[in-house]
């Protein structure tokens, strides 16, 4: 494998690490995370949106699609998620993931991206003023 080429094969250890990252992200943000790594159609955006629509609760879900062959990454956020996770924030996360993928680190990019998405998607905490 050439330097920087992304290895699309996920080992059992990789899957466990990603599952743990997804679980923690969901606990943090109360948003469903799904990751698809594989072959997408030519129009990766439309394909990612279609996959996102197959989820149980698309409005409350975030889909991360990575097509290593096409060197493409797509993040689709549901309408409810977009209330706290802005598209501009997602673009920054995608840029961060791209740097990992360009270095050949698929799992690291996915984990970092999911963590960042969860932090941004977390609903802002309400500050209560204490009254004496």
């Amino acid at each position: 494998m050439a330097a920087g080429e992304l290895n699309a094969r996920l080992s059992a250890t990789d899957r466990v690490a990603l599952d743990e990252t997804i679980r923690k992200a969901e606990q943090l943000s109360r948003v469903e995370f799904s990751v698809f790594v594989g072959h997408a159609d030519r129009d990766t955006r439309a394909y990612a949106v279609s996959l996102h629509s197959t989820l149980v609760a698309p409005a409350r879900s975030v889909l991360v699609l990575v097509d290593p062959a096409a060197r493409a990454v797509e993040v689709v956020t549901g309408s409810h998620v977009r209330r706290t996770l802005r598209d501009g924030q997602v673009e920054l996360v995608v840029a961060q993931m791209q740097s990992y993928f360009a270095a050949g680190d698929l799992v690291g990019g996915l984990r970092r991206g999911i963590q960042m998405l969860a932090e941004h998607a977390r609903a802002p905490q309400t500050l209560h003023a204490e009254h004496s």
Partner: protein
Amino acid sequence: MITAASALAAVIPLDVPVGWGGDQDRDVNMVHAVLVLGGLPLLLFLVITVAVYVPSLVRGDRLTPGQPPVENHWLGGPRTTAELAGPDAQDADAGGASGRW
């Protein structure tokens, strides 16, 4: 008339090489022949096959042609159906971002 061959034979004696002559040397051991003519090519075939496939197996490359170049992996949230949703069923307000590297 002296031809070139006869002249050469006069200079270099063209005797039958040792081991070529005589009836006793014409007996061929069949087991030995089968081993040489069949066993060696088979052994060579196996060595070449191992030399070609073992490095690929060690690297984890796929060996079966016709399979998708990337194995699809789903992680996380459960899906309601394996069917892709049509345009009408898609979340109209879906957002996000795209990127390539």
